[in-house]
């Protein structure tokens, strides 16, 4: 993955600071190849959301700042962009916690995603039908108020709304949070379908390591603001450490990668 043109997103050694004092990320580097799904894995507070918000430039609204490093999207640096410009460039973030417009109907929610595009009424209806073909469930509920739909449906609304902006790249922040296993599978099926049929590149932040890796091409594991491990999804799924720490196939009381690394360096020294 050395060719710059083949990567739609290229993050190099970024450091993010909140409120000028709290260091949330140090030296995070990651790449998303065009048309691929990349998983960003880690526990609560590891820095997944921060990484995504750094990319979508939504950090500013939370008093966060990229203080070092660079982020290139489709060959252009994103420093000077704001969220609505990023959407214009084809990068849309689906925020953690779904964040539907509760008082709007399902359909109004989805249409609002096309705000940045100049579409006629007819074009919008055409786009809507296309979106509904991926989210059949939403078509049935198009007239309901979004706040009264289920958690899974709300997640679908959030993804459908983002798709309405015709993104080249989607940033999904914990799309399966708090959903039943069946719905998790359904959401991932849709995401996979969008990736394959629409050619959308996806950066996916997840805690659900197993299913995330099974649906991705490549993965990064971050802990306390640092990338600890990266590799193809397959290699990560078969990695003993990942199995032990993230897939719950554990032996002893080790808690995270830092402990593993410490242990290994101790072993080396004693050898």
């Amino acid at each position, binding site marked *: 993955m050395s060719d710059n043109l083949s990567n739609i997103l290229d993050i190099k050694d970024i450091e993010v600071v909140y409120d000028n004092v709290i260091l949330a990320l140090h030296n995070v580097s990651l790449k998303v190849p065009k048309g691929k799904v990349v998983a960003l894995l880690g526990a609560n507070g590891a820095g997944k959301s921060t990484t995504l918000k750094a990319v*979508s430039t*939504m950090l*500013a*609204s*939370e*008093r966060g700042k990229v203080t070092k490093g660079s982020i290139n999207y489709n060959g252009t640096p994103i420093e000077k962009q704001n*969220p*609505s410009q*990023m*959407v*214009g460039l084809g990068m*849309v*973030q*689906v*925020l953690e916690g779904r*964040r*539907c*417009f*509760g*008082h*709007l109907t399902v359909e*109004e929610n989805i*249409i*609002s*995603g096309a*705000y*940045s595009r100049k579409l006629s009424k007819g074009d919008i209806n055409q786009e809507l039908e296309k979106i509904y073909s991926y989210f059949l469930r939403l078509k049935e509920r198009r007239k309901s*108020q979004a*706040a*009264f739909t289920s958690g899974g449906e709300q997640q679908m609304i*959030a993804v459908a*709304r*983002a798709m*309405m*902006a015709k993104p080249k790249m989607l940033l999904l922040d914990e799309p399966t949070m708090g959903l039943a296993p069946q719905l998790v599978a359904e959401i991932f099926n849709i995401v996979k379908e969008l990736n394959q049929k629409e050619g959308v590149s996806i950066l996916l932040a997840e805690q659900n390591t197993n299913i995330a890796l099974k649906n991705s091409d490549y993965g990064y594991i971050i802990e306390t603001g640092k990338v600890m491990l990266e590799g193809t999804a397959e290699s990560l799924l078969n990695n003993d450490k990942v199995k032990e720490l993230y897939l719950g196939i554990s032996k002893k009381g080790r808690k995270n990668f830092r402990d593993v690394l410490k242990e290994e360096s101790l072993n080396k020294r004693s050898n």
Partner: protein
Amino acid sequence: MIDELLFFMEVLVGGLLAGTMYSLVALGFVLIFKASATFNFSQGAMVFFSVLAFCGFMQDFNIPFVLAFILAALLMVVVGLCTERLVLRPLMNASEDTVLMATIGLGYVLEGLAQAAWGVEVRRLDLGIGDFPVPWIADNLKLFISALDITAGLVAAIMIIGLFLLFKYTKIGLGLRAVADDAGAASSIGIPLKHIMLLVWSAAGVVALVAGCMWGARAGVQFALVDLALKALPVLIIGGFSSIPGAIIGGLIIGATEKILEVYIGPYFGGAIEGWAPYVLAIFFLLYRPEGLFGEKIIRRV
């Protein structure tokens, strides 16, 4: 008996129509509350500022009525533009309380600017509509109803229909409702917050101008218009802060009850209960229906 009924009808209709004058003021608050979840304390100052400028254009520069109105409306758009650029954008990530305090400051700035530019004396505003009973209605229905009240009612009706259509059926209206629900999510899908804010503040400014014209024609264009905005508070509590129909109905309820209470119960209190009765009503609403009649309920799935 018939006379008493007629008298009651007259009090009621007069009250309802006077209530629409409150509704017009309340409308401006609702617009801004919907978009930024902030009570705009400068709304009263905007009423004063806009109508004083309108009078100034007409009386000091001899600009004809319609042109002066358009100029004043444009001036309010400029005020909206400056407010967005100089006050709201720097406070984009500040808490709602901070923005609330900023609107109080903005109010003082507008009051000061208006008086510095146009002077402090009370001005008369003649809309060509008299504040006296319409003879035709007085003759045929035996009700004494002011022409100005009827005009205010019509204007309020036109504005509510216009705003309703704007919100429900236009793209920018959809954007505004989205921002009202979740500004963060709205910006994540590319709805530019600054355009929405600019629209809302300009619309609130024009609504303030219309409300100012009605009140100015009745009570003279003077500093007291600023405090009028306080009358909108019970209207908003009853109607709901985020509902445009609520602002209208709330105004009607306040207008009718205060007149009826004044006429029938007022004498027992030595009169002048008009001034405080709406606030008592508002307290009851706060206790039993805090979101108001039409306010958006806080929807929570369980």
